[in-house]
């Protein structure tokens, strides 16, 4: 179904050339896509919220991100006098670099990736959780109570959501039989979202919490703790956090596209284009959720992870395992219907038992 030939593993020839070209491609891709994402989200939110969104800088406001970047670069860089200066300086880099590293294993098309690790998805999960250290460093180094509250919330939340996130990935890995992202994509003659509807939902929820997007954006809940961990940041250091936030959204969109939506596969169009279409589609879903639902409180977020997502992820893993063992090459369509039915029943039944409650603490 794909008429485009896969790239050789050392494209465009030679180890160092491959390495250099892909580093440049990844840097350009991340920075450019983040800029387009910013415009895309702001315009999209504008449409959803019955307003226009940025439309002054360039055609359709496309250069708004450029204007913002120029502004942010020329801003005064303020370091709190009583802050922990080294930690304060390092934090943006620690938050941003792991996000860039993740792109090393994401296949833009067949074979087009920096390193085809055979433990690709494990690498993604491991590296992406380093970001939270940067966020905690920012909260600690700022010497600001709002920042510290935001940072503490983030650590609790991100560490909790790693678990359902990892368990949801196991379902995909069980079906494809590989941890390599290229092989996971190659195994998707039918996108895994159909085999793993429950896994997809859990992964989406958990990754929203991982990247601190609404409704789990308690770390920078602007109506509660001003700007959370980056309250004290200004200038390009703030810009780095902003960049990291959107780059994380890009990572999550790319991973969801790769794991559940068939990555670069699709036919007719060039594979890279398919990959981008899927990434932008997932990102639309992310900011659509952001603009629609209120924020969840921190104790409810933790309850959601441990009482709702974790048991469902475990059940999903067991069911997938049983299916893989009993029907190693069974008919796909009955399994798809069975899995969708299981997902619907489980979510409905479990939400009967589970309530996002939490209440008053008596003194």
């Amino acid at each position: 179904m794909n008429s485009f030939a896969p790239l050789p593993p050392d494209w465009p020839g030679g180890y160092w050339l491959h390495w250099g070209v892909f580093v440049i491609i990844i840097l350009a891709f991340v920075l450019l896509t983040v800029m387009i994402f910013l415009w895309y989200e702001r315009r999209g939110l504008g449409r959803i919220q019955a307003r226009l969104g940025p439309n002054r800088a360039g055609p359709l406001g496309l250069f708004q991100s450029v204007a913002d970047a120029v502004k942010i670069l020329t801003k005064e860089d303020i370091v709190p006098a009583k802050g922990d200066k080294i930690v304060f300086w390092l934090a943006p880099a620690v938050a941003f670099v792991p996000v860039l590293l993740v792109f090393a294993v994401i296949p833009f098309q067949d074979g087009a990736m920096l390193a085809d690790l055979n433990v690709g998805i494990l690498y993604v999960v491991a590296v992406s959780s380093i970001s939270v250290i940067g966020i905690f460093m920012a909260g600690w180094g700022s010497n600001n109570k709002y920042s510290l509250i935001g940072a503490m919330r983030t650590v609790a939340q991100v560490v909790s959501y790693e678990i359902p996130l990892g368990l949801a990935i196991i379902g995909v890995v069980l079906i494809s039989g590989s941890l390599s992202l290229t092989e996971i994509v190659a195994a998707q003659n039918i996108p895994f979202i159909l085999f793993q509807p429950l896994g997809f939902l859990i992964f989406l929820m958990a990754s929203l919490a991982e990247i601190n997007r609404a409704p789990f954006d308690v770390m920078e809940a602007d109506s509660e703790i001003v700007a959370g961990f980056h309250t004290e940041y200004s200038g390009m250091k703030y810009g780095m956090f902003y960049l990291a936030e959107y780059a994380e959204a890009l990572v999550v969109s790319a991973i969801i596209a790769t794991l559940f939506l068939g990555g670069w596969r699709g036919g007719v169009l060039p594979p890279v284009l398919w990959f981008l279409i899927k990434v932008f589609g997932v990102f639309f879903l992310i900011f659509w959720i952001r603009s629609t639902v209120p924020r969840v409180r921190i104790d409810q977020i933790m309850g959601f992870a441990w009482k709702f997502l974790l048991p469902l992820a475990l059940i999903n893993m067991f069911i997938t395992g049983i299916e893989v063992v009993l029907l190693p090459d069974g008919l796909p369509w009955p399994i798809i219907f069975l899995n969708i039915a299981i997902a619907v029943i489980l979510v409905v039944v479990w939400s009967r038992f589970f309530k996002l409650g939490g209440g008053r603490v008596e003194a």
Partner: protein
Amino acid sequence: MVIKTEPFVLNIGPAHPSTHGVFRMRTTLDGEVVVDLQPVFGYLHRGIEKLAEERTYTQNIPFTDRLDYLASMSNNLAYVMAVEKLASIPVPERAEYLRVIMAELQRLASHLIAVGSFLNDCGAFMTPILYMIREREKILDLFEMVSGQRLTYNYMRIGGVSQDIPQEFLPALHKFVEEMPGFIDEYDQLLAENEILLARSKGVGILPREQAINISASGPVLRASGVKWDIRKADPYSVYDRLEFEIPTGSVGDCYDRYRVRVEEMRQSVRIIKQATEQLPSGEVRSPVPQRLHPPVGEVYGHIEAPKGELGFYLVSDNSIAPYRFHTRAPSLMNLTALRDMIVGWKLADLIIIFGSIDICMGEVDR
């Protein structure tokens, strides 16, 4: 291992995204839980009550605009009604109806902002409040037609209103009244049953019925606690006794009830406006009032049901052209009294929405 923890003090405000003005809360937090709260206000004090003692009764009307700047029409109405009571000035019937229409439009505008900013405090990123503001714009357009202003209207006068409505007002109002119930239903449907909103606001920040009465709460805050008290019914003024409407009440007194009561009140306001436009008589809009008004010696308390609660003006006259004493009973300030009891024990995130659900306007609290 036991980790030693201790509560810390966090200053929320006076400049904070969700203090609705310049309000400051000195909170003591134990982790995320609020263990103590001390409200501090006065950052917007402009001395309006004292200034008003130096100006004539008519000159004071613009000051009232600047009390609750989200409900200027209601403030105008409460003040001019107090003066009319003090000097026994009759008001033409058409003016009474116009006042009711304006007051109810103002209630809609104020509640739209209250509900929108409450949802914004809940963390629904800007979307609800922008839709609410879109509807509020239509009301502001109507106000601009009659008064020329969009925020501080200065429309009511002692003995009537400043001018009759222009020709294009009634068709525009009619169109608005026809459309509004649909919009209210639509927004209500989008959020009222939202699982996250229910989890965040149901049972949160309960103000018990007895306490609500004891602190002299009024408006939606009081009615959400289950007390059926509305000045429009309890002490009917203007022409409210000729109009049919209901008083929505809550049962628990939590944030969700306060939200529901406001949404229901918006529906009732549309109903009142509809009836008032149907009954609107023709005639004068202002009775003759001497340019230098010397009310007889005495004191008066005039009150109305403003969007945020019972808004009262206490005036003392010494037969001069200026009031001897000018005091405002501001509903926002009274409703704030229970803030600490409602918030202590809840988390930081709840603090914001409990505070938001009271719906205060700092212009009125600090005066």
